């Protein structure tokens, strides 16, 4: 608290770390998508191609949340 500049810099790092908590949801989401995709492929191996495409698509959307969190964290560290 004696050094306000260092205090703010520390809080920035803390905030960036907290922002990355958003990756929890994305991780769960990608895991669920992969689990569902693999189960579907196991039940119907003939449809593996189209299931894989849609699985990757769903993963990309779920992962986007983590990427937003990363963008916020990067902005906090470098731009704010």
């Amino acid at each position, binding site marked *: 608290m004696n050094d306000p500049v260092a205090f703010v810099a520390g809080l920035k790092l803390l905030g960036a770390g907290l922002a990355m908590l958003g990756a929890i949801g994305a991780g769960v989401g990608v895991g669920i998508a992969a689990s569902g995709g693999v189960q579907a492929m196991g039940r119907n191996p003939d449809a593996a*191609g189209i299931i894989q*495409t849609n699985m*990757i698509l769903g993963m*990309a959307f779920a*992962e*986007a949340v*983590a*990427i*937003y969190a*990363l963008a916020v964290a990067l902005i906090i560290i470098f731009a704010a």
Partner: protein
Amino acid sequence: MSETTKKRTPVKRWIVLALVAAGIFAAFIGPSILKPISPVVVLPAEPTGLAIGGFQITNTILATLLADIVLVLMAFGAYRFSKTGSLVPHGFYNFFEFLVEFLWNSVSSAAGKWAKRIFPIPATIFLIIFAANMIKLVPGFESIGRMKEVHEGTGYAPVKLFSISSLSVYTLDKAHPVEVTAAIGETGEAESESHGEVATDEMCTACEVVPFLRGSATDLNFPFALAVIAVLMTQVYGVWALGPGYFSKFFPIKQLISGGPFGAINFLVGLLELILEFAKILSFGFRLFGNIFAGALLLSIVGALTAVIVPVGLYIFEVFFGIIQAYVFFLLATMFISGATIGHHAEEQH
């Protein structure tokens, strides 16, 4: 075929062994001579010092141009190979054919009869992202550059390695850190700014490296440019397929007039779709940028911590992620464009 296998000389395995030995030497003996410095994370692309008519060429632009050149050479090679009339592709062309076939299958399963018209846009995007992501893993990216004076934080004193005639090559050593406090004073700042071009020849005392080449997708401009192209082409293909009626997706005025209360709700939903188009640009851009930037960050930090085995695994991981991200960008662009060609009303009728 058996002759070619007999002729094979074990040169390549000696090269591999020599590289492994060099890696072990660098990892175990190297730190006693020169210690690897902790990486500096820079978000915006840095200018390399080259400029065309006042337009600063950043290191990411150079890397993108390099990827473009590689891609054009690949295209010429594939074209010349297809002119030879040989039906059995070999080596590199085999890979190229596999790639194009794979992309074509993805597009044709998603877009149906529009596949032939849609294919060029997402496939081009895939190829450029793929080339850029692969080329950024070449050693020398983000590590070879010119020295720059540090204005704030920790710099390192340069250590002379060797010199080729007038060009001397320096490196940075962690054993010689130089702390630079932020408050140099306005005069000092202005002086170093104005001498920026000249100072490259003189030696700096506390240096950091401004790399000549840096992965294209670690600059936000590259993914965003591709995202803007993809979303704009979505609108173009939508108008091409459905005529001006395509815009009724965003402004369903007909439903607003005749539809009663649900028409009003539909109108608001249409406005949401308009916002969604802009959100697509954001999510496209940040997805590619975030993945590639995080990957580059991971590689440099882990490379500074442990130099031996771990980075190899991470490099394989990065190759995988480079392909996956290019494919995801391609797939999303295909989905959005083919979705735009179908339109709302056709979907309801079927």
